[in-house]
């Protein structure tokens, strides 16, 4: 045997005896016995590739870690309101530039150290450094200076007044780290939250255990919470049906909702998300640079039919880039009614009948299903979409998002209050944002009323310009064993909160 084979064989034998990829104990115990359980297993779809959201994009890492393991000074509750987290209270100066936060004096990190103002200063200044490469860090650009006059007080001064900053602070950019805990963020998480990561098996599961020494605002209920990752949505549904898992964080097989609703041992809750499923069109280049062409598309698509076929009718019509939970929401679904005749006229007016264009579709179930329906409706009004499936995230991000090499695409924009990003300068939509920039800036600096009115105008302008199609608001279909309580039904923050989960 060669040295290579000897080495591999030897280590393989060793692995058989010492390692295991423990999927934990089987939990198919039936509902009666559940009341005494101190653990729960939750299924999610997208798995974190590592534990470091400061350098790695994607929703999976903050979903697992924010609020559960890492905390910010504030958090967003289920109603979308800002609530205290690490900061017990805060004050805003009269010039609306300086926030003074008072930290919870009982807060500690999982390594036993207390959470101090210096840690907050360290963490927030790190967002602007080279160590932080996640593009979302831009949310902290408005911060001018951070001061820590004493252990319990943090003063953060903004460059200009901002209505959005405190809200943004509740997202992952506000996570507070311990200076000794940032060396190996990809593999170890040292946070101040109610849980800590006990075990992280890549591609399979994360096991959280409750911290006994947590004395903050959101203490955990159950001792052990496991996130198990299912690439295959059907496998997750099957696992819930056969009792191997207790909760599906967001059901990706919407057609099975009625099955679960009919089952007395299960509960289904349809909550809201910040995910607008957008039919994006390249405003800057190609066939859809012409507004008439975009208007033809918007008249041509029947959003309700798309939702009905693609996602079993679960979801909400929005008509703009704003979910109903945001303060500046207004119903704009009537701006571009489904009108095939009108659409055909506009197609003729724009002179694009029969012209082929590239419709890039990320390889996600909702996107592929929506795209098939949209493409069929567009063919009906005389357009020729050429569907190109792109692997998500790698290929879609590269080709469509970064290189703008597309005419039409469909994607769920999941971040909260992201209309200014998605229709901002240089973004892949190619939208001419000159018309909304000033209104948005004034709104951010103005009073709360001015903010709401200003942002409404921004959203309306985007819809009026036919900048993109807004197919539907992605639903949060939480399915669980009937005796689970404390489910985070609305996915309105970065996080899937586990601290309230319990058995009744």
């Amino acid at each position, binding site marked *: 045997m*060669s040295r290579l084979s000897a080495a591999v064989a030897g280590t393989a034998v060793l692995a058989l005896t010492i*390692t295991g*990829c423990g999927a934990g104990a*089987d939990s198919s115990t039936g509902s009666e016995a559940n009341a005494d359980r101190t653990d729960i297993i939750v299924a999610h779809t997208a798995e974190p590739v590592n534990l470091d959201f400061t350098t790695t994009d994607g929703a999976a890492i903050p979903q697992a870690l924010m609020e559960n393991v890492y905390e910010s000074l504030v958090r967003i509750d289920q109603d979308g309101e800002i609530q205290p987290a690490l900061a017990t209270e805060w004050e805003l100066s009269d010039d609306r530039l300086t926030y003074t936060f008072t930290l919870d004096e009982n807060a500690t990190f999982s390594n036993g150290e207390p959470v101090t103002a210096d840690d907050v200063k360290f963490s927030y200044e790190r967002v602007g450094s080279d160590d932080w490469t996640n*593009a979302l860090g831009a949310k902290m650009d408005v911060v001018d200076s951070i001061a820590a006059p004493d252990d319990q007080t943090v003063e953060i001064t903004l460059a200009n007044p901002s209505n959005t900053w405190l809200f943004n602070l509740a997202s992952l950019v506000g996570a507070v780290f311990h200076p000794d805990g940032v060396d190996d963020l990809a593999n170890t998480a040292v946070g101040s939250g109610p849980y800590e990561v006990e075990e992280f098996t890549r*591609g399979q599961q994360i096991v959280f255990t409750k911290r006994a020494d947590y004395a903050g605002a959101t203490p955990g209920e159950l001792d052990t919470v496991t996130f198990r990752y299912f*690439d295959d949505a059907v496998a997750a549904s099957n696992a819930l049906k056969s009792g191997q898992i207790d909760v599906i964080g967001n059901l990706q097989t919407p057609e099975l909702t009625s099955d679960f609703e009919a089952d007395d041992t299960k509960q289904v809750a349809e909550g809201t998300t910040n995910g607008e499923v957008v039919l994006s069109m390249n405003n800057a280049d190609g066939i859809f640079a012409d507004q008439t062409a975009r208007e033809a598309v918007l008249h041509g698509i029947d959003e309700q039919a798309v939702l009905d076929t693609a996602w079993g009718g679960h979801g909400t019509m929005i008509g703009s880039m704003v979910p109903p939970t945001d303060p500046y929401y207004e119903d704009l679904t009537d701006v571009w009614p489904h009108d095939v005749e009108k659409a055909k006229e506009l197609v003729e007016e724009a002179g694009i009948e029969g012209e082929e264009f590239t419709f890039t579709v990320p390889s996600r179930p909702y996107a592929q299903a929506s795209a098939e329906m949209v493409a069929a409706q567009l063919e009906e009004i005389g357009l020729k979409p050429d569907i190109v499936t792109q692997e998500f995230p790698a290929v879609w991000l590269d080709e469509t998002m970064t290189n703008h090499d597309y005419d039409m695409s469909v994607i769920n924009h999941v971040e909260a209050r992201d209309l200014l990003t998605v229709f901002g300068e240089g973004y892949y939509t190619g939208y001419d944002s000159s018309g909304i920039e000033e209104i948005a800036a004034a709104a951010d600096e103005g009073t709360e009323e001015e903010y709401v009115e200003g942002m409404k105008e921004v959203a309306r302008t985007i819809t009026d310009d036919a900048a993109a199609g807004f197919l539907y608001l992605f639903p949060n279909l939480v399915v669980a064993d009937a005796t689970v309580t404390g489910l985070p039904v609305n996915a309105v923050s970065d996080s899937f909160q586990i601290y309230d989960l319990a058995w009744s």
Partner: protein
Amino acid sequence: MRALASRLLQFVLTVWAATVAVFALMQILPGNAAQVAAGMSATAEDVARIEQEFGLDRPLIVQYGDWVTGMLQGDFGTSYVTDAPITPLVLNSIQVTLILVVSAMVLALLIAVPLGTLAALLRGRSLGAVLSGLSQVGVAVPNFLAAILLVMVFSLGLGWFPSSGWQAPIFGIGGFLSHLILPVFSLALVQGAILTRYVRSAVLEIMREDYLRTARAKGRTSASALAVHGLRNAAIPVVTVAGVQLATLLIGAVVIEQVFVLPGMGSELVRAVENRDLLAVQAIVMVLVFLVLALNLIIDLLYTLLDPRVRNAA
């Protein structure tokens, strides 16, 4: 002995050629590994820094040398994407896949040997024809269809077994077996059909051999004659084919691993490809290729050992 040494030398050379082939294959993957690792928002300096950090700016021959030296010491390096060592991932997934496919192959043989023998003995009768026909149909059924149906009936319907997941044996043998049983059956039913046809053919071949005719002429029934003389000889081609099929299954089980959410080599490979985790792809491909080559070597050696005609000729 000379033949054996030569075969081993040939094995080592092929493994070496495979390392070159796999390494070269990874170099033509589009996208710079450092760019992928740095993420969408990275600047050119970020990429350069990461290239340096991972040693990607060195000459290819040096990188290749490092990679092979690392593997000889059982170290596949650290992933650019997950920032974690790749070796534990590879070892865990080998373990899962080997347990899965070896169990499936054993079960397939347990199905195929009696059925195939029966089909051969009953040749010309209707039951034999039915058995042959069934095996033909079994070969044509995609294993993922078998998996979906088994889950529907035995997991969702009867609730006997979990529908997915993996539990390592050290966490309890009961849970281990109950998680294993449906995926193993999904693979074994189709493999069993394939092997049944080989067993039937091998047994028929043996039945024509002279010594069996003699035995039968002496008044023994076909069955007992076969039991006494034939099975050992029939085993040679069957074992060979089972070995070859086993090599194919190492990656062929990927669909079953995905359906049952098993963390085997196929699943890990697909995941690594999705994450563009190039070093992990490289490691898993190399390990799979090595296992296939090693299996082929074992088959050849077994064949030489089992078949006296070949042994004498060599």
